[in-house]
């Protein structure tokens, strides 16, 4: 239980996808102009992560690894298979959102198909694959499908938190007098940098 809780908290605050490993930066910078859309994208990313990471965990442990059904190391296929799973599932999510949440669909517009090539999703799977190999005592260790699920969910929440925070700051920043060449992209980078510094305060967090 302690391990799960620790994994959960660490994935949100310490190993935050944005501030510690820059995953999903492209859509993070492009979409974070207002809180509402950001929240929608954050939910979409969390949702896709929660589905794809456990599926890829099963793929990695049951099919690709030496103890899987083929009894040989097939990890060199991991990139292609992971991205295929992600692209398929994203397509499915896109169709579901279009059918049941048309308002959200029109707000997210072009970004839903882009989730397929969002580094946060692929990064989640690749970090999961790497963490299977860690020692069991490590709080980052992922040893079961439950761990994979917790990791995916909390990373998604961390991403959501980061994008909503940035969107809120950018909404306020629209009223400030920023030097012209720095306006837009430049100041956003610097803001994210300062936020990353603030999140470094959590780095001692350990259960």
């Amino acid at each position, binding site marked *: 239980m302690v391990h799960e809780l620790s994994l959960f908290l660490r994935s949100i605050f310490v190993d935050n996808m944005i*501030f*510690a*490993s*820059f*995953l*999903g*930066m*492209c859509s993070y*910078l*492009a979409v974070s102009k207002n809180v509402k859309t950001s929240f929608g994208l954050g939910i979409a990313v969390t949702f896709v992560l929660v589905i794809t990471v456990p599926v890829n965990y099963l793929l990695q442990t049951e099919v690709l690894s030496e103890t899987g059904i083929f009894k040989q190391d097939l990890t*060199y*296929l*991991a*990139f*292609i298979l992971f*991205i*295929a799973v992600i*692209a398929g599932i994203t397509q499915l999510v896109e169709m579901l959102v279009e059918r049941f949440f048309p308002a959200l669909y029109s707000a997210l517009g072009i970004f839903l*198909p*882009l989730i*397929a*090539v*969002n*580094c946060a*999703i*692929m*990064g989640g799977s*690749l*970090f999961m694959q*790497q963490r299977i190999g860690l020692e069991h005592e490590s709080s980052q260790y992922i040893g079961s499908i439950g761990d994979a699920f917790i990791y995916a969910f909390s990373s998604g929440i961390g991403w959501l938190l980061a994008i909503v925070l940035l969107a809120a700051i950018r909404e306020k920043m629209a009223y400030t007098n920023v*030097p012209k*060449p*720095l*306006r*837009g*992209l*430049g*100041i*956003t*980078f*610097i803001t*994210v*940098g*300062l936020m*990353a*510094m603030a999140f*470094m305060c959590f780095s001692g967090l350990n259960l």
Partner: protein
Amino acid sequence: MATNNKEAFLTPLSRNNPILIQVLGICSALAVTAQLEPAIVMGLSVTVITAFSNAIISLIRNTIPKRVRIIIQLVVVATLVTIVSLLLRAFMYDVSVQLSVYIGLIITNCILMGRLEAFAMSNKFVPSLLDGIGSGLGYAWILVVVGAIRELLGSGTLLGFRIIPQAAYDFGYADNGMMTMPAMALILVGCIVWVHRSIVKDIED
């Protein structure tokens, strides 16, 4: 045709730079630049992969059905990335450990998909190849600049060689540990965007 080729090669270097203007491929640009060497390796890998994937997709563009093009593009890119990743692991093991998951993340690097969709799907072989190389280099030079600044100020070395002399440390100079942290990467890229936009005017945001 000749000007077209030149344009395809040159615009991504500054006026249409993938990182500074199109804001694509930021993730890996920030994560691998704590030192110069992985930054260079990463920049070259991305250049090779964009060049080849642009060329391959442009060759087969007329045979790809429109509906499944994303999957086909992803498969081509994923195959190239797997090859590069295995080559790095075989010949430059230390660097490939440092780059860890970010080599795999080249697959989802928006530069690749962006160039494939916007350029290779509708252009001939030679311009596509040049556009791929140009975009890759436009990405690489930012990585090299950020990597060099972070390594020089963060640990006083470049490519592992000591640049800031021992005498400076004896006088009380200290390395800025912050530079090796993720936070400073963001701020540095922000400053580069700032400088670039004050030199190259008339860029719409």
